[in-house]
C-alpha cells in the first residue's frame, strides 16, 4: 500500500491538470483510498502516470545484431553492475538490462518494440525476459508476409484475417506492423516499391491493397492497436505524397503512422529535403481515424535499424558505413547502418525541424505520441531533451541558432510559437500512447489503473526535470528513488490473443511444409516458457 500526497497531479485521461490531490495504491493498482502503508509526500512535486513508449526498437534479432555490430558504440557507455542491478552497456543499442533500467530511471514504465519478425518472436520474448522493470510488448511484421499477400491476391480476406490472428497468437505479439508494405518483398530481388499502386512482383498485390486489407483485418479482429504503419519510401525526398496516399488509403479505418518525421519530405527523389509537414499535419488534424508518432531526430551518432531493408541499403550507400541486411524467409527483412546526424547538415537539420513541426502542428495531442523511433532518430534517453524543445520556446530558439541556417529557414519551425504545457506533455508521453495502443489500464491514474507512477521534482528546466524523476513506481512498488534503482523487478509482457477460425491452420501447415524451414508445430511461442509474466490484453471490440 502506498499513498502519494500533496503532489500536483497531471492525469489528462481523467482531465486532471496539475490539481493537488492524493494518489492511492494497493495491490499494484490505483485505488480510491488506502489505510496504512508508506506515504510519499510529493509537496512541490509533479505526479504523472508512468511513461509509455509506443515505438522503439529494444529487443529481438535486429536489435541484437545491431548490438553485435557496434562494440565501438558500447565502449563509450559502460553500465556497471551494482548489488541490485546487472551490468551492461548503453548508448544507441543498450543491452537488455540497461534498457530496462534507463527507461525506469527516466520514468517510463511501458515500452513497445515496433518490429519483430514473426519467426524470431521467441527471440524477442527471450530478451524481454531480461529487460527489467518495464512492461513491454511488440508489433509483428506483416506488411511483406508472403502468405498474407497471397491471400489478399486470391481474395481470401477471411483466411487472411484468421492467419493474422493466428500469427499474433503464435508470436504472442501485440499488433500488426507494416514496414514498407510490398517494398521489402521486392528488396528480396534487389527492388523496392515507389508508389502505393505498383505491383509487388510475383504476388499480384499492391502496397495500397496490403495497407487497406491489414487495416481492415485489424479493425475486424478488434485489436486494441489496429495497425501500425511504417510507410513506403521512408527517407526519400518527395515521399510525403506516398504518406498522404497511405493516410487516404486508411479512409475511415483506424491506423497509426509511425515516425512520420521520416515520411514528410518534399523535393525531388535523390535531392534536397523540404518539409511538407503543414499539408500532412492538416490531413491528420482533420481525420480522427489517424494517429502518429514522430520519430524525432537529435544530433549525434546513433544506429539506424529498420525492417525496411532497401532503406538501410540506401543509407549505407549514402554514409559508406557498415551495413547489415537480413532477409527473413516468407515474412520480412531488416537492415542496420550506423548514422551520425550533424547539425551542420542541410538534410539532417531539415529532418530535425520536420520532427518538431509535427509536434507543433498537430492540434490534438491525443493523436500524436512522442518518439525518436529509438534508436533511429536518437536514443530514448533523449526524450527529456525533446520535451524541453516542445515546452520551452526560448530553448528552441537557441537550438535553432545552432543548426544549418539555410535549412531551418525553409521550414515553418522558426515561426512556430507553440509551447507544450505539462498537461500536454503528459498526453504525448503517456496518456495518448496508452490510448492509441488501446491500453485501458495504462497512461492514467484513475481507479483501477496500473499503479505505474512517476514523480518529478518541479524544475524550470524541463529536460533536467524529466531526466531524473524523484520516484518511479511500478505496479505499486517504489523502484527508483532519488535517481537510483532501489530494487529490480521484471514487468509484464503484453500480448493479444484474437479469436480465429482454426480451420485456417491446415492451410498454414501446408504452407509451412512448402516454404518454411521449421515445423509448423515448433513455430508458436510457448506462453508458459517465454512469457514469465504474461498479460493478455483483451480484443473486445469496443475501441
Amino acid at each position, binding site marked *: 500500500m502506498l499513498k502519494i500526497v500533496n503532489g500536483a497531479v497531471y492525469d489528462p485521461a481523467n482531465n486532471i491538470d496539475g490539481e493537488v490531490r492524493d494518489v492511492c495504491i494497493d495491490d499494484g493498482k490505483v485505488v480510491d483510498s488506502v489505510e496504512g502503508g508508506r506515504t510519499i509526500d510529493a509537496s512541490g512535486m509533479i505526479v504523472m502516470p508512468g511513461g509509455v513508449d509506443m515505438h522503439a526498437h529494444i529487443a529481438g534479432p535486429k536489435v541484437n545484431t545491431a548490438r553485435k555490430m557496434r*562494440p*565501438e*558504440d558500447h565502449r563509450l557507455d559502460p553500465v556497471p553492475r551494482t548489488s541490485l542491478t546487472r551490468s551492461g552497456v548503453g548508448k544507441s543499442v543498450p543491452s537488455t538490462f540497461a534498457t530496462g533500467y534507463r527507461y525506469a530511471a527516466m520514468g517510463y514504465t511501458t515500452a513497445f518494440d515496433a518490429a519483430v519478425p514473426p519467426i524470431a518472436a521467441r527471440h524477442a520474448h527471450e530478451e524481454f525476459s531480461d529487460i527489467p522493470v518495464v512492461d513491454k510488448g511488440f508489433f509483428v511484421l506483416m506488411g511483406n508476409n508472403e502468405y498474407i499477400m497471397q491471400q489478399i491476391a486470391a481474395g481470401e480476406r477471411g483466411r487472411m484475417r484468421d492467419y493474422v490472428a493466428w500469427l499474433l497468437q503464435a508470436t504472442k505479439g501485440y499488433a500488426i506492423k507494416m514496414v514498407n508494405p510490398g517494398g521489402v518483398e521486392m528488396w528480396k530481388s534487389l527492388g523496392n516499391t515507389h508508389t502505393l499502386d505498383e505491383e509487388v512482383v510475383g504476388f499480384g498485390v499492391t502496397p495500397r491493397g496490403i495497407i487497406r486489407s491489414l487495416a481492415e483485418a485489424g479493425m475486424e479482429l478488434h485489436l486494441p492497436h489496429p495497425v501500425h504503419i511504417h510507410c513506403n519510401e521512408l527517407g526519400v525526398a518527395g515521399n510525403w505524397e506516398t504518406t498522404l496516399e497511405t493516410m487516404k488509403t486508411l479512409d475511415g479505418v483506424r491506423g497509426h503512422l509511425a515516425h512520420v518525421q521520416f515520411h514528410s519530405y518534399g523535393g525531388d527523389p535523390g535531392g534536397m529535403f523540404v518539409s511538407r509537414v503543414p499539408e500532412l499535419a492538416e490531413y491528420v488534424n482533420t481525420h480522427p481515424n489517424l494517429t502518429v508518432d514522430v520519430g524525432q531526430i537529435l544530433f549525434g551518432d546513433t544506429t539506424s535499424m529498420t525492417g525496411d531493408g532497401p532503406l538501410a541499403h540506401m543509407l549505407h550507400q549514402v554514409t559508406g*558505413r557498415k551495413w547489415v541486411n537480413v532477409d527473413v524467409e516468407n515474412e520480412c527483412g531488416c537492415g542496420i547502418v550506423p548514422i551520425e546526424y550533424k547539425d551542420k547538415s542541410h538534410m539532417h537539420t531539415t529532418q530535425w525541424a520536420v520532427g518538431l513541426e509535427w509536434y507543433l502542428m498537430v492540434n490534438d495531442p491525443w493523436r500524436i505520441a512522442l518518439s525518436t523511433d529509438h534508436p533511429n532518430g536518437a536514443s530514448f534517453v533523449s526524450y527529456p531533451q525533446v520535451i524541453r524543445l516542445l515546452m520551452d520556446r526560448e530553448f528552441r530558439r537557441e537550438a535553432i541558432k545552432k543548426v544549418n541556417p539555410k535549412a531551418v529557414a525553409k521550414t515553418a519551425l522558426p515561426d512556430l510559437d507553440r509551447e507544450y504545457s505539462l498537461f500536454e506533455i503528459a498526453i504525448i508521453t503517456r496518456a495518448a500512447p496508452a490510448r492509441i495502443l488501446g491500453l485501458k489500464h495504462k497512461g492514467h491514474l484513475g481507479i483501477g489503473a496500473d499503479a505505474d507512477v512517476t514523480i518529478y521534482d518541479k524544475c524550470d528546466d524541463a529536460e533536467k526535470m524529466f531526466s531524473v524523476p524523484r520516484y518511479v513506481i511500478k505496479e505499486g512498488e517504489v523502484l527508483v528513488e532519488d535517481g537510483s534503482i532501489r530494487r529490480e523487478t521484471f514487468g509484464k509482457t503484453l500480448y493479444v490473443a484474437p479469436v480465429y477460425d482454426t480451420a485456417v491452420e491446415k492451410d498454414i501447415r501446408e504452407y509451412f511444409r512448402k516454404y518454411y524451414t521449421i515445423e509448423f508445430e515448433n513455430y508458436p511461442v510457448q506462453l508458459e516458457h517465454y512469457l514469465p509474466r504474461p498479460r493478455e490484453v483483451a480484443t473486445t471490440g469496443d475501441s
Partner: protein
Amino acid sequence: MTVLTLKSQLQAPLEAGVIVPDRFAGNSVAAVAGMPVTYGNEAACLGDFFKVAGAGSTEIVLEGDLGRVKNIAAGMTRGKITVHGDAGMHLGSEMRGGVINVYGNVGDWAGSEMKGGKIHIHGNAGHGLGGAYRGSRRGMNRGMIIVEGNAGNEAGAVMRRGLIVVAGNAGDFAGAFMIAGTLMVFGKLGIRAGAGLLRGTLVTFNQPELLPTFCYDCSYSPSFLKLILRDLRLQGLSISEEYITGCYRRYSGDFNRLGKGEILVYDQR
C-alpha cells in the same frame, strides 16, 4: 619526477589506467600510492604493487616487468612516461599528447586510436599497434609511434592520420583498411599488407607480396619521403643516406576501395 617500481611479479592483469601524467600531477606520494587500480577482479591501490618515489608529477618513470600492467598512459595528454622494462596492453591507447618511451617490449594495442603525442618503443610491439578497436571507424589519428624492434599483426589498421615506423618486421595486414597516414616498415612485411587501403602510404624496404588489387605505377624519388626520413634521423633513428636519396617503386591501390593509397617499395637497384 615520480618513480614507480614494481614490488613483485604480477600473476593477473593489473588495470592501471591511473598511471598517466594528467592524473599524477599535483598529487602527493600518498595520493599517488592510493590511486585505484584493479588487480584481476579486485579493487586495489597503486601502492599495493608499486613503490612510489617522488610526488605526482607529469614526468613518470616506471621500473620492473610491467608486462601484465594494462592501460599505462591511456588517454595521456601531456608530460612524459618512461618505462624501464616491458609494458602491458593498451600502452598509450587514445593518448592525445606527451611522450612515452619504453625500454622493453609492449603488449598489444599500443597507441590504439591515439590522437597525438609520441610513443617510442625500443623493443618489440604486439598486435594492433596504432590500430583500432573492433568496430571503430578509425585507428590512430595523429601522433607518432616508433618501434625499434618488430610489430605484430594489423599495425596501423584503419589508421586515419599520423606516422608509425617499425624498424624491424611487421606482421600480417599491416596498414589494413588504412584511411590515411604513413606506415613505414624497415624490415619485412607480413602478408596482405595494405589490404583495403583507402588513402595513405605504406613504405617498405623489402619487396612484399602484393594483393591483386594493387597496380605498379613507376619508380621515383618522392620528396615527402625525404622529409619523413630526415625527421626520423632527428628522432634518433639511423637512416641510411641511400634511403633518402634513392628511388622507390610505387604501387597504387587498393582498387577494391578508393584506390588512392600507395605502397612504396625501396628500389635496391
